[in-house]
């Protein structure tokens, strides 16, 4: 393999990996405040793409994206209030079942609102055919957007959780929700906010990748599974590690294609999942102790 090809595979891996990371970050935020894996996370990505596409017909791209993110965040918050809040005392089994149910409902709702056609936002800069050359390998400017937004989100989350009172309060809820209550933090609002946040981030991801991958009503399930693999790989509850894990999985997949038939790509990532689950459930980047001292 020439150096240029290696680089090309790396770019391909990074592109896919950032998409996975978007979903995984969402998982982690909700997991941190509630201990729930929200299987509907992939649907937020789909909603982001769909809503922004709809609005982009009436207005410039960026306001449309902002509206899409806000609407999806509101949907996320609503889901928490309507479904999750009254379920939280239930068993894990119940939570799994309900979030799977919600994901089916969101998907079906999208089918009836937007039909089965694919949608794609226009490229943020340049067009479908423009590409940038980096050390001989070619890359679409949109990939740079994806990367940039991923970095901004990671940085933003870091800042948010580290330096803002709300962010700190959310961490407090995840570390010790009883103590958080005693400090006067409304844990219910924090949980609600975490749903909005992860829905919003998912939606933003959905907008940024839409020009590259297009948006389709049924795209959520596959993303949810890949995102979960990434979240587990990085260690549940650790959004920053999720980005690293996303890139790792993306690169693994992309290099696996260079050797194996693509048809078995998913089999590889799922076998990785099974191995991690069985051998090291705390994830690649977490030892048991570090995961008990969760850090963002």
């Amino acid at each position, binding site marked *: *393999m020439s150096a240029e090809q290696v680089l090309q595979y790396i770019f391909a891996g990074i592109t896919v990996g950032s998409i996975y990371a978007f979903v995984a970050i969402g998982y982690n935020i909700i997991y941190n405040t509630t201990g729930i894996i929200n299987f509907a996370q992939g649907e937020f990505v789909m909603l982001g793409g769909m809503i922004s596409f709809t609005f982009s017909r009436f207005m410039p791209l960026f306001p449309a994206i902002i509206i899409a993110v806000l609407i999806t965040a509101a949907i996320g918050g609503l889901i928490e209030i309507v479904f999750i809040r009254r379920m939280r005392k239930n068993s894990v089994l119940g939570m799994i079942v309900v979030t799977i149910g919600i994901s089916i409902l969101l998907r079906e709702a999208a089918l009836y609102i937007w039909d*089965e*056609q694919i949608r794609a936002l226009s490229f943020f800069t340049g067009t*479908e055919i423009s590409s940038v050359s980096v050390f001989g390998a*070619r890359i679409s400017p949109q990939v740079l957007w994806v990367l940039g937004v991923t970095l901004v989100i990671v940085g933003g989350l870091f800042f948010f959780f580290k330096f803002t009172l709300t962010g700190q309060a959310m961490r407090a809820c995840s570390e010790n929700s009883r103590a958080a209550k005693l400090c006067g933090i409304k844990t219910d609002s924090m949980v609600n906010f975490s749903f909005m946040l992860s829905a919003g981030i998912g939606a933003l991801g959905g907008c940024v990748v839409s020009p*590259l991958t*297009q948006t389709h009503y*049924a795209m959520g399930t596959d993303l949810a599974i890949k995102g979960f693999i990434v979240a587990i790989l990085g260690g549940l509850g650790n959004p920053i590690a999720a980005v690293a894990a996303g890139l790792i999985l993306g690169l693994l997949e992309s290099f696996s294609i260079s050797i194996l038939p693509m048809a078995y790509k998913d089999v590889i990532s799922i076998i990785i999942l099974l191995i991690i689950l069985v051998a090291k459930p705390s994830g690649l980047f977490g030892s048991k102790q570090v995961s008990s001292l969760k850090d963002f």
Partner: protein
Amino acid sequence: MKKFLAVLLIIGLIVTSGFAGGQSEEGTIKIGAIFAVTGGASFLGAPEAKTTEMVVEEINAAGGINGQQIELIIKDSAANPEKAISFAKQLIEEDQVVAIIGPSTSGETMQIKDLCESYKVPLVAAAAAEAIVDPVASYVFKTPQKDSYVAKWIFSTMQSMGIKRIGVVAANTGFGNAGKGQLEKYASDFGIEIVIAETYDKAATDLTALLTKLKAKNVEAVVNWSIVPAQSIVPKNMKQLGMEEPLFQSHGFGNIKYVEAAGEAAEGIIFPAGRLLVAEKLPEGHPQKEILVAYKTAYESNYGEDVSTFGGHAYDAIMLVIEAIKNADSLDRNDIRDALESISGFPGTGGVFSFSATDHNGLGMDSLEMLTVKNGQFDFLQ
């Protein structure tokens, strides 16, 4: 107590709806349809269902066939073979339909091919795979052009362009697999070498890694065979990678949505397809022109969306069945089958159909045109 009554009510409703189904008026001509309106193949099933509904409504409004109204029973299989089997049995036995159109995908069609054959029910499939009509089952027909024609068109075009080494990518759907098979079968006849052939997932969202693999093999052209959104991802990713090699697609590209989704990257894609996509550009007097334009305008004004060749396949299927019923002037399934087999020179969206005992597709190589994308529009390849 209230809860229990609610439960009882729901169960009651469900059971009655189950047992009450299938009641219908007397004296209508029942035609069954199985389409994958939802699920993984909804790209096919949704326009197909819309088309047949529209056609039947029109014909009924105009008085029906031989004075009888048509009752169209559409079942949504969501591309599940087991549902297709269940629905086929239901349509044959319970609804006593005179013929079935659909299913949308090759897999489903193959699963019910023998069923229709043993119960002697005419089936006009809207799925493409060659195996549907080869070997010929006397009751099974199909409307989409044969995959082998498509492969041959692509190869002969390549020949004229001087292309020798190609890469093939296909979606892991029945359509993609069948197409890949046909390409591999005929390549050597045209002196073309398939350097690499790969399958990708139908829900794939980024194919740059796969295309990098192709690029490394120094192919002179790429063929993508699919009906899924990847049809616009492939051209976009190729451009991203700076691949300037010509891209050929299958007749599955016959949906302007994919061109829009691919934007500028779609320019110059070459693919064979029926004439529906270029209906207005056909010369006056072409046998298909009138019907193509009529269908296209009707569909687009009815549903506010662009027409696709898939809807066209269903259009042909329902029109052929109606023609056969007219010709047979009978509602007997055998008579309809015979009438279908003797249809000749019948213009449809896919071409001019002429069935025979050995050919249940009824279309020739000339049913396809090589098209390309020019300024975001489909156009003839010069």
